[in-house]
């Protein structure tokens, strides 16, 4: 009996010591550092530096955060309304591509590190995961790398959220317009072959595209989703080609976009309309397609004659060592500039900054920018590779838009 009792005591000792460790850790981290003399503006962010999301974050989000911080600090910091100028101090975490991690990282930034502002993570899902917290703690949430049709609804739900990339329907209706014009001009037939990656992004877009295309009277001859891990597209392209459709649309991620391009070249499949998803607007796409990307379409695009944008691209190349992509990067960079200008106007009071972001007008790399209902609507929806540049072609009535050139030339 004696030995039994000691076993229980020992177990309890273990239990209490485990709790002790937990408690020490929890208390240890709650002591906040006193911030009487402010010597810097702290900006925190959690992005995926490892795990499956790292590829996307590393292309579109992280480099722009780094570029912006670098620029601000080189200029001596952000000028506050009281005349002081404070440099930015960064607190960064790796969310390891895990939703639970990103949520906790934001809680940590808000309640333990007590940073002045929090920049969002990469991806629609993760932006939605942190949105309730950002609203709860009163941080403006500049959701950059998130495509969602529900942005208006989210703005109502979380009034500190701002959405910079539009929704799936914006991109697909712009594409449908282009197809209708080309069909009516007799350049292409009525058939569309469409594939999408089976995750949030692909499904959002394909769900938006179906009604748009049907409303436009196009016939969807092939419509399949493929798993994100797919690496071989020979069969899918064969089947798509066999439908006789003149338009091929893929709502894909970079690995698929690249693989589709390579396979299309191998199979010499070059339909008049060749529209791909994320990745076709990456600078590296030119290497991927061996320089034969003329006529390929995708989301985003730039106005090649816009000097602001050209300067941004040059600066990105200089500081980060590579060019930004032609879609999301510039939008995220613009959101940071807006944050900076809002701080310069109203100081570090987060509510005031949120209000200013919502109502103010800003000079950014996109030109004069103003949000509508907390959303950036002045976005290029469709771009096309023309003479080595990914030129914005829709909305066609926006200043600086190029015109679509169809049919796409062969893979020469």
């Amino acid at each position: 009996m004696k030995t039994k009792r000691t076993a229980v005591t020992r177990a309890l000792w273990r239990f209490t010591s485990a709790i002790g460790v937990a408690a020490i850790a929890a208390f240890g981290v709650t002591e906040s550092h006193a911030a009487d003399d402010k010597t810097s503006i702290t900006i925190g962010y959690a992005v995926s530096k490892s795990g499956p999301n790292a590829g996307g974050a590393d292309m579109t989000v992280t480099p722009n955060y780094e570029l912006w911080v670098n620029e601000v600090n080189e200029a001596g910091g952000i000028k506050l309304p009281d005349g002081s100028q404070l440099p930015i101090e960064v607190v960064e975490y790796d969310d390891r591509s895990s939703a639970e991690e990103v949520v906790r990282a934001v809680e940590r930034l808000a309640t333990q590190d007590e940073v002045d502002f929090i920049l969002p993570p990469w991806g629609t899902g993760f932006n939605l995961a942190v949105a309730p917290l950002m609203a709860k703690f009163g941080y403006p949430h500049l959701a950059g790398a998130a495509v969602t049709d529900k942005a208006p609804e989210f703005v109502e739900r979380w009034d500190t959220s701002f959405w910079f990339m539009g929704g799936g329907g914006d991109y697909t209706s712009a594409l449908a317009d282009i197809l209708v014009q080309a069909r009516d001009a007799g350049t292409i037939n009525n058939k569309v072959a469409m594939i999408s990656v089976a995750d949030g992004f692909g499904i959002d877009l394909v769900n938006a595209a179906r009604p748009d295309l049907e409303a436009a009277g196009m016939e969807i001859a092939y419509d399949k989703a493929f798993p994100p891990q797919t690496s071989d597209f020979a069969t899918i392209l064969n089947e798509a080609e066999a439908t006789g459709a003149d338009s091929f649309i893929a709502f894909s991620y970079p690995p698929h976009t690249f693989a589709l391009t390579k396979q299309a070249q191998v199979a010499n499949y070059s339909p008049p309309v060749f529209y791909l998803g994320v990745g076709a607007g990456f600078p590296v796409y030119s290497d991927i397609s061996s320089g034969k990307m003329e006529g390929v379409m995708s989301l985003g695009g730039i106005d090649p004659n816009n000097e602001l944008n050209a300067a941004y691209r040059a600066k990105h190349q200089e500081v980060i060592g590579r060019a930004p992509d032609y879609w999301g990067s510039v939008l995220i960079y613009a959101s940071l500039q807006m944050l900076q200008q809002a701080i310069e106007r109203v100081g570090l009071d987060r509510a005031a900054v949120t209000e200013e972001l919502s109502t103010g007008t800003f000079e950014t790399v996109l030109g004069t920018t103003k949000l509508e209902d907390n959303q950036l609507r002045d976005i290029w929806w469709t771009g096309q590779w023309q003479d080595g540049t990914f030129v914005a072609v829709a909305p066609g009535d926006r200043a600086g838009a190029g015109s679509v050139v169809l049919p796409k030339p062969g893979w020469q």
Partner: protein
Amino acid sequence: MFEHIVNGLVLGGTYALIAMGLTMQYGIARIMNLAFGDTIIVACFGTYLLVSAFALSPLLALLILVPGAFVFSYAVFLALMQPLVARAPNREALEVDSILVTFGLLFVIQGILLVIFGGAYTSYSYLNVGVNVLGTTVSANRLLAFVMALVFGGALMFVLFRTRWGMMLRAVELAPESAPLYGIDVDRVARYAFAVGGALAASGGVVVSMYQTFTATAGVVFTMKALIVVILGGKGSLIGALIAGIVLGIVETLVAAYIDPGLTLAATYAVFLAILLFRPTGLFGSAA
């Protein structure tokens, strides 16, 4: 139908190539190497570096990376696996230990790649031209993978069945407990088998990098595919890995063509689980 078979064969060639390496490591060296895919990714980045920085042909990269991977894998076995083998009381304990250690190794390799190359998607083009095979156009680089799988498979098969060293390998695979009775140094054989497995992984990586986009964190995808093929073929069986890889390629292609591309992976796992349940020794494995 015929074109799907050809496409499936070519796709399966890649699977076979990478799976043969794992079957050497798992079947003969008895190490369940979860970092196997990361060896492939290292070779991908290595090739990319040699191609982009030194303008080397990816085929020449083979000559550098494959011996490099052999030495690296040999060293890994010596440093990390040998002590585990020595202390393991039985096969199960070694399996659990090796899963854990190689899981750690996976993170170390991945972490180093992330520090050096970042998390970005990486890709380049080489031999991305169509080749007509019996009326079906396939890409030259994938065809190369297929041919390499056959050549390496054939060469290894020759070594296994026609040389003394091969006989020792097979002895260790079939009866690791009694092999020492015949004067076979099991540890040494295991070291070499592990190193050869690593070299095969690297050769797979070089070829894969020619047509597939890779990131520092993509290794686990290759590990899983290779593992599935190895289990399908029967662990330790090279011919099994070769055939199972090709069968898997054809199954995936047919499912994509006739059922739904969205179900290719589900089909893969379903086939895999069914084999595990009904014939756990694999299609070509020796009876348990």
